[in-house]
């Protein structure tokens, strides 16, 4: 029993120490962003590997999620003869929830794991240490551009996901199930609120992008520099990002939509 308590105490302490290290790391990385701004090529390279390379997975997933939403929504709404609301339903679910959340989960799996593995391996092969000895701060040179790239890419990817999703819903709803074209689009246009729906969705995706990138970068930087250490860090990135994204989504949704 005492051993259990001891272990609990040790684990709690270790978690808080890690959280402290992560916060310190984040502060340094955020300060480092200032030195990235005058050197845009560093950012552009990362935007490509973090953002552009995630394009395909986000587009395809968005399309299928939209198509499924169209199908399921139609079955439910047609019972009430409200097929005309399909456009609004698909768009609202995508913009408010599925767009930011699913694209953030995909982002953590696709870009986050790659970031952790890359940085963990750079650490294992002494590249980070080597940079420090060349008087180059690895946080400024390696971490900050990636953090900024994640922060910029994520809302754009979420927007892409939602847009493609709406197209998917339209293909199924209008193309296959015969929902009225005018009703589909006009109801979407009339009922979707810019501030309540779209802006809140964008805020969510920025928060998720920030957290997912932070976790990925920190896990890589903090990884034990062996092959096993890097593989564990990569797993932790995906698991912790998923938990954080879903947990934060609940909190943000409660804050944003709670009053209505």
């Amino acid at each position, binding site marked *: 029993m005492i051993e259990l308590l001891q272990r609990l105490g040790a684990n709690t302490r270790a978690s808080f120490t890690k959280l402290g290290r992560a916060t310190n790391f984040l502060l340094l990385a955020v300060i480092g962003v200032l030195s990235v701004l005058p050197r845009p090529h560093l950012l552009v390279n990362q935007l490509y590997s973090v953002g552009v390379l995630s394009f395909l997975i986000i587009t395809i997933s968005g399309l299928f999620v939209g198509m499924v939403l169209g199908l399921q929504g139609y079955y439910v709404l047609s019972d009430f003869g409200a097929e005309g609301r399909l456009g609004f339903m698909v768009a609202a679910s995508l913009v408010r929830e599925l767009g930011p959340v699913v694209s953030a989960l995909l982002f953590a799996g696709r870009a986050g794991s790659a970031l952790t593995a890359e940085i963990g391996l750079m650490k294992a092969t002494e590249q980070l240490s080597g940079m420090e*000895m060349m008087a180059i701060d690895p946080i400024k040179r390696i971490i900050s551009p990636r953090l900024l790239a994640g922060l910029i890419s994520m809302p754009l990817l979420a927007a892409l996901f939602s847009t493609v999703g709406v197209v998917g819903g339209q293909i199924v709803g209008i193309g296959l199930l015969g929902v009225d074209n005018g009703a589909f689009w006009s109801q979407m246009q009339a009922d979707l609120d810019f501030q309540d729906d779209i802006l809140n969705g964008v805020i969510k995706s920025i928060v998720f992008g920030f957290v997912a990138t932070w976790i990925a970068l920190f896990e890589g930087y903090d990884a034990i520099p062996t092959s096993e250490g890097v593989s564990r860090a990569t797993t932790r990135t995906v698991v912790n990002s998923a938990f954080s994204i879903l947990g934060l989504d609940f909190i943000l949704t409660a804050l944003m939509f709670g009053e209505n």
Partner: protein
Amino acid sequence: MLKLLRLNKISRHHNELSLTSMVLVIQNTQFSFGYTKNLLSMDNSVSPQNSLVSVHNLSFSRGSKKIFDDVSLEFERGKITAIMGPSGTGKTTLLKLIGGQLMPSKGSVIVDGQDVHKLRRNELFNLRKRMGMLFQSGALLTDMSVYDNVAFPLREHTHLPESMIRTVVLMKLQAVGLRGARDLMPNELSGGMARRVALARAIALDPMMIMYDEPFTGQDPISMGALAHLIKSLNNIMGLTSIIVSHDVHETSLIADYIYVLSEGKVVGQGTPKEIQQSSSEWVQQFMTGAADGPVHFHYPAKDYLDDLLSIGKRY
């Protein structure tokens, strides 16, 4: 002009290095003439006045294990000083302490008159620009070509135009004999080549000193010889101060001017390679001749063998 002539003379002495390296020497005079001058007027005594790096009463522990216990070392300007000792004696840790990547629990490290561990971050970084380090693995950036790796510190620290960076990079690569490999990626290089590229990168900013972490480990005889030759000639031509951490007795003895032998956190022997060879210390003799048993036991500490065999012991 006289200085240049004297430098050329040195360069001719090392006629293996080509004309471009002579240009390299001339170019170096602008950046590091102070050290070159030192090379020309060096004497053989090890005195703190002539030391570039001084380690005073250094202690360092990792967890409960004491890695260094009150160690004092002097690294003379313009010389190659080797630190030898068996694996696990903290030789790499010593280089990290000198480079300011680790903090000692006691003692100080003075590099070119500055206490490394009392410097502020930007002062430390300024000092590091004048310290090259060659990691065991080379530590090349794997997403860049050989050319970009050597250009990396120049691009980060200077505002030189690309045309000038190209000239410097090609000179440095020529000095290590890999000008023709400039377009290769690090994963296309052999271990020895990777270390030579890393060496070119380490000398890109014309440092005053270079620290070599196990430069000979895992090398075939030819690349080992090439590296030893390169370390020696770079040290002499560029007027560097070199610190080599190694357990390759033969190669290191050939090029080192002074050797420290470390064991269990203490200096157990020091002197010129000749003095070390003739050392009366049992420990140093065991290390230099590679005897399996001696002061360093073959067996990890254990209880009596017979008792151990006859006892029931815990189940595995």
